[in-house]
């Protein structure tokens, strides 16, 4: 149990190990630990951010879908309106056309009737003259009675 030089040797060895540990062992390892801590914190942060982004995206998708549904509904409604409008217009046009056709037909009929009347009138005049000639058997002065026959024809 002697106290001797060993004590000095031990102090030197101790100092050497402590200094070596302080310079070359402690800083790199605690550095790696700190860096890993930072990495984990960043990872957790990123996960949080991703979660938030996902929620936002879902919300956006929902609102987009809602909006497009509304738009589609509006377009369909518009199309329906337009279709009925077109049908109405077509009906209107058809009616007008029909009216026009009817009018034209009526006018033609009237014209035709007038023409027939005119022809009839001319024939009646000739018939009347022929009949009178038959009745009288004698030659009647055409010119003297033309006025009378004309008057008769006009009454028809």
């Amino acid at each position, binding site marked *: 149990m002697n106290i001797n*030089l060993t004590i000095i040797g031990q102090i030197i060895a101790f100092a050497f190990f402590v200094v070596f540990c302080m310079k070359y062992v402690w800083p790199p390892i605690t550095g790696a630990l700190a860096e890993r801590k930072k990495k984990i914190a960043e990872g957790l942060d990123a996960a949080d951010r991703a979660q938030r982004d996902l929620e936002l995206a879902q919300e956006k998708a929902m609102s987009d879908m809602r909006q497009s549904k509304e738009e589609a509904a509006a377009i369909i409604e518009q199309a329906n309106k337009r279709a009925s409008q077109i049908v109405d217009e077509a009906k209107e046009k058809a009616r007008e056309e029909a009216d026009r056709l009817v009018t034209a037909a009526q006018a033609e009929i009237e014209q035709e009737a007038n023409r027939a009347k005119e022809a009839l009138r001319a024939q009646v005049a000739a018939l009347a003259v022929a009949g009178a000639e038959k009745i009288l058997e004698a030659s009647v002065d055409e010119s003297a009675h033309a006025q009378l026959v004309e008057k008769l024809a006009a009454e028809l």
Partner: protein
Amino acid sequence: MASGELTSSAYISHHLTNLTFGNHPVNGWSFAHGGQEAAEMGFWAIHVDTMLWSVGLGLFFIWLFRKVAVTATSGVPGNLQNFVETIIEFVDDNVSSIFHHKNSLIAPLSLTIFVWVFLMNTMDLVPVDWLPYAFQQMGVEYMKVVPTTDINATLGMAFAIFGLIVYYSIKMKGLGGFLGELAFQPLGKWLLPFNLFLEIVGLLAKPVSLALRLFGNMYAGEMIFILIALLPFWAQWLLSVPWAIFHILVITLQAFIFMVLTIVYLAMAHEEH
């Protein structure tokens, strides 16, 4: 090594004698043959076995930890890095819960103390006869393999820590502050001599108790292993196995206590009180 020619006391004293190299008044610089010669060498002698094992274990410690430090990654750590990181975080937790100043020395110092003292204590678990017997076959007379059962080793560490205590006390509080603390506490300036006596005793008690606690525990543990080794060989394991298992606790605890007290003393050196 309880062979027939050896008496029990000779066996014990053989196991408790360091391999000493020093300046003997008669033989000059030589290895001591027995405790008597070693004592005659006085201060100018060195325990070769203590130095060999402590430095060897210290080198093992810095080699192992340096290996991890070089390849340390902030990604997924390997098994060895995991193990080393566990120790470092354990030490770092202890330091940061006790020591609240900025100091880049305390944490590595604590790590070195904890691991180194633990490794030196662990030599106690090697069966007491193996290494001394092996060295005896190689012609080395004495071989005490547990450096912490040598008071020189524990005192050396304790004095180094004492030096740090004085250094940081003066650095943080100034020479006046440090001396003032010694002189004017705890009883005011009218009892200065009494204060001085009390405080100096208190200051010196720190390294001495640090050294003696570790030394005493390890010496006693080693002693019991040696005594168990005197039993008949078929009965030894009955006692040595339970004692070794219990000793695992002791060696860890002593390393931990040495580390924690170092941190506490250095924290006290940094604080006004």
